[in-house]
């Protein structure tokens, strides 16, 4: 059973608008959450993270929001740019689990149209 769920396989947004990528999780032991971005033919690259003790973390155009009670996090990209077109993976870490183990979602493919 999936512990990290990205229910939208794809998302299309107009350039300059906001992109919102969503992620839900089931394991209350998750203590740290990360977003990775993946371009075709490249490995995932780290984008932004958030600790479970926070509800928001911002880095430039990227903001991650965490709602622990709903076990939900989201990544906001404002404004969206064509270069943001990629697959975005949500990942989580279990403080009680195997050291270093990242639990990934299946990814959401974002397309930003000029």
């Amino acid at each position, binding site marked *: 059973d*999936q512990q*990290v769920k990205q229910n939208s*396989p794809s998302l299309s947004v107009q350039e300059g608008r906001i992109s919102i990528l969503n992620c839900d999780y089931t394991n209350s032991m998750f*203590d*740290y959450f*990360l977003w*990775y971005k993946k371009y075709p*033919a*490249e*490995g*995932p*690259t*780290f984008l932004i*993270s958030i*600790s479970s003790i926070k509800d928001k973390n911002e880095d430039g155009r990227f903001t991650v929001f965490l709602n622990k009670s709903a076990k939900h996090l989201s990544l906001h990209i404002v404004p969206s740019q064509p270069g943001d077109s990629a697959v975005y*993976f949500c990942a989580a*870490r279990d*403080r009680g689990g*195997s*050291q*270093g*183990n*990242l*639990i*990934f*979602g*299946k*990814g959401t493919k974002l397309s930003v149209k000029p």
Partner: protein
Amino acid sequence: DAMVIQNPRYQVTQFGKPVTLSCSQTLNHNVMYWYQQKSSQAPKLLFHYYDKDFNNEADTPDNFQSRRPNTSFCFLDIRSPGLGDAAMYLCATSRDAGLIETQYFGPGTRLLVL
């Protein structure tokens, strides 16, 4: 200035024929990971090395083995590949194995089993 290098990028093998995938890193990181990602699925951790200490995930099949002869290199050996082992194999590294450590991924090796 590639940091995590995976060779080859594409590997074709025959059913039951042993195959080895290679990963090297220039980051001098302590931890190296191997993930398996099947089509439209989330990357799944197979095992990781913390320095020379090998950590196998509980549900990783015995068919998958790993070697880390030195800090820079880590190999994934599939002893008898089955059709179900066709996937993208991602190598990653991190400086340490703590909760907030960032993992750096290579571009992956896509394995095809005929």
